């Protein structure tokens, strides 16, 4: 029993437990409460944990010896007998195979599209930068805006402004969730004006490669209506636009 405890307290076992623990937590426990994490992020966090462990256990000579000593002795294999000897041989054979398999899987064709990085908020074209909303935020304007929103936008962006409209599940990328702090709360009104008028087809190259279903509303809505719907959107989502000038 005491022996087992000593093994568990060894820096190598602690490292293994921490690493596996973090991975299990990110991969299987966290998704119980929220959406699953992409592998790119899990990899990042595990790598960070690994480097933290390395830093901690190589800080002094004693801890380095405790950590690396067994690994080193095992790999050198001097005077090894029985199980240890076979284990070492197996490792020396399996490790290169693992690397080979990794290489193969990352190169082999698959029917999944590759992981994409899409720029959600690319820079707008020059003519839309710095436009100011010409309308006053009166109750009438906001209500008209909300009316337009209910008829035109809510099927996709949801009547609660949360991106959960009835048509939303069909689209990739999904319609923006205006309640999220990462969408319209981060943006200026002029940015929305551009996005609403020009839609998904008006996105610059960096906003690709996904095909955005956001329609370009410049045909259906007048400029005035677009400004109104912007006001309705902010009001309904409980957000306010980003500004750079001091508000009086």
């Amino acid at each position, binding site marked *: 029993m005491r022996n087992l405890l000593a093994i568990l307290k060894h820096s190598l076992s602690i490292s293994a437990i921490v690493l596996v623990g973090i991975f299990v937590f990110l991969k299987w426990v*966290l998704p119980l*409460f*929220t*959406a*699953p994490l*992409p*592998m*790119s*992020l899990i990899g*990042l*966090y595990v790598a*960070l*944990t690994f*480097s*933290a462990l390395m*830093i*901690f256990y190589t*800080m*002094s*000579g*004693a801890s*380095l*010896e405790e950590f*690396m*000593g067994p690994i*080193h*002795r095992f790999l050198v294999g001097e005077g090894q007998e029985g199980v240890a000897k076979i284990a070492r041989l197996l490792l020396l054979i399996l490790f290169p195979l693992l690397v080979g398999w990794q290489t193969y899987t990352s190169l082999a064709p698959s029917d*999944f*599209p*590759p*992981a*994409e*990085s*899409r*720029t*959600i*908020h*690319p*820079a*707008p074209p*020059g003519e839309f*930068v*710095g436009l100011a909303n010409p309308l006053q935020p009166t109750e009438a304007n906001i209500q008209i805006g909300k009316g337009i929103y209910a008829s035109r936008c809510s099927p996709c962006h949801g009547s609660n402004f949360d991106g959960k409209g009835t048509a939303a599940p069909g689209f*990739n*990328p*999904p319609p*923006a*969730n205006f309640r*999220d*702090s*990462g969408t319209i*709360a*981060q943006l*200026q009104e002029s940015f929305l004006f551009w996005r609403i008028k020009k839609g998904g087809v008006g996105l610059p190259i960096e906003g690709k490669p996904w095909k955005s279903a956001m329609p370009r509303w410049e045909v259906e809505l007048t400029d005035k209506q677009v400004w109104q719907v912007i006001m309705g959107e902010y009001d309904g989502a409980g957000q*306010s636009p*980003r*500004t*750079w000038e*001091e*508000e009086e």
Partner: protein
Amino acid sequence: MTLQSAIRTVGSSIRNIRASSLLGWGVLVAFLVLPCLVLAQGAATQAMSVEYRDIPGIGSRNVIWFIAQQHLLLAGFVLGVPLFAWVCEIVGWKTKEPRYDKLAKEFTKLLTSAYATTALFGGILLFLLIGLYPKLMAYLTDIFYPTFVAYSILFLLETAVLYLYWYGWDSMQGNKKGFHLFLGFLLNLFAFFIMIIPNSWATFQASPVVVADGTALERAWAAMWNPTWWPVNIHRFIANVVLGGFICGAYAGVRYLLAVSREEREHYDWMGYVGNFIGVFGMLPLPFAGYWLMREIYQYNQQMGITLMGGFLAWLFILQAMLIGVLFLGANYYFWMGISYRIPGVAQSYKKPILAMLIVLMVSLAVWMTPHTLVASLQEAQQMGGAHHPLLGVFGVMSAKMTVANLMILVTFMSFIMYWRAGKQETAPWAKIAKAIMGGVLAVAAITIVVLGVWGYFVPALFRINTLSVAQVLIVLFILVTFTPLTAVLLKSAKTTTEMVWGQMPVRSGYTLVSNAVMVILLMSLMGYARSSSRVHWHVYGVLRDTSEYAYSPALGYAAALMSLNTFFFCLLVAFIFWVATMGDKSQAPSKESPQKVEPGLTPVMAGGSPSSGGKGGVQDNR
């Protein structure tokens, strides 16, 4: 010091200068200036006919990219090192410790050859720019012509002062030291102006102002005062200190790995410590300067701000977070190793605080590196409902990044304080109370920073940026400027329980120092690219369009390859400069490095050195 003796000293130092090298400088500067004069005259007529020239196969843009980056890195080096040397000299003069003076001199020696190399690359850059981008150069010359003259004069002054400073080092000891220090001040003053004049050209390209009619001088003056000029000046100035410090550290690290005698090991271990110290010290305020610069860019032109921070250049900032993270880790790692190797017997008692700091650092780093828009496969994106994760998406926004950056600075600063205090026992009667108060203040500061960061999610962006972020920065600065003198006072009365032992650091400390320097160089290459590609297809943003065939932004992978090449080549250059500068030492003292003097068991072992194979491994000796 009498005026007479000062004059005599100057006279004797001038005699020391080899006339030929001065002449060489004169010719070089003339070469730099002359083409500009010609260009200014012929600009209107000739240059317009040829707008661009290309270098087939390589591409004119790549050539300029490479040369400009080398020139900038070298310039950062030759501006950072004099600062570093000057500060060391002052410290040596104040503390009467000759080793500081020796260190300062050792680095000034590098300057002469480094300076020539920098000017060389500057000259090449200018010729190439005139040849390859005549349209742009004609435009810039038209506006900035008077600054070219000022720049050349500054160059002459700087060169003269540098020679006096270097060749007069030994003859200006003792009561003439004051004058020598003054020369060091002048050296840095001129260097600063030499830095900010080209900064005005580059910042004008990014954030031009309307240049009204007027005399040539008035127009140049107006163009210099563009919105990003001073933020870039400050940012670069601090970054140069960091570069100088970490390169000094890397030099010491390499020499430490190669050292054979005990004195050498002790000296270079100590030098590495000083270099790392200065690098870290500069690094602490650097993020604030960067933040100020970004704010100015956003305010100047939102589109440019979005391109940088949210648009296609946003990925550079994730890379930046990674590099800075490695740098912070490396610097702290070096401090922590210093505690356990240089101060015998204390390693055990510092294990817990170090673990706590490491965890805070790692969690901060994880938050900082979490991109706002995640790289996800189609399946993963569908599960998340977009490229934002519903929970971790909160780490992606500025409020979180600012908070963890502040925390990381705080932790690094505490590492430094801890290292400083290790092995010493405060004796002042109020030491206990003072330490308790400091601990309390620190805890409150950390909690406040986190609270402000969380609050940032619930307020409009403007309030967050102008009030909350500024408050966070002020808190950290407050800690920095109060804790440093307080600790110094505390330690004045302290008795040393364990003497620091130099020359005992393990091999990996040397590699850590080298890695820190490489990270800084990579960072400068990365952010240099970000700065100039934020102009997208403009030479002068919104004014002069790039109509060459290279008016597109290269793919990020391509850019990263060029950055790596630049870093690699610059490291080679620096190694060359160090090699040339130290060649004399070796021929002078050949017996010092004879193998007989090698202390048994003290030879550092290379990276693959086994920790357990006999008693020869560096790791074992240094346990």
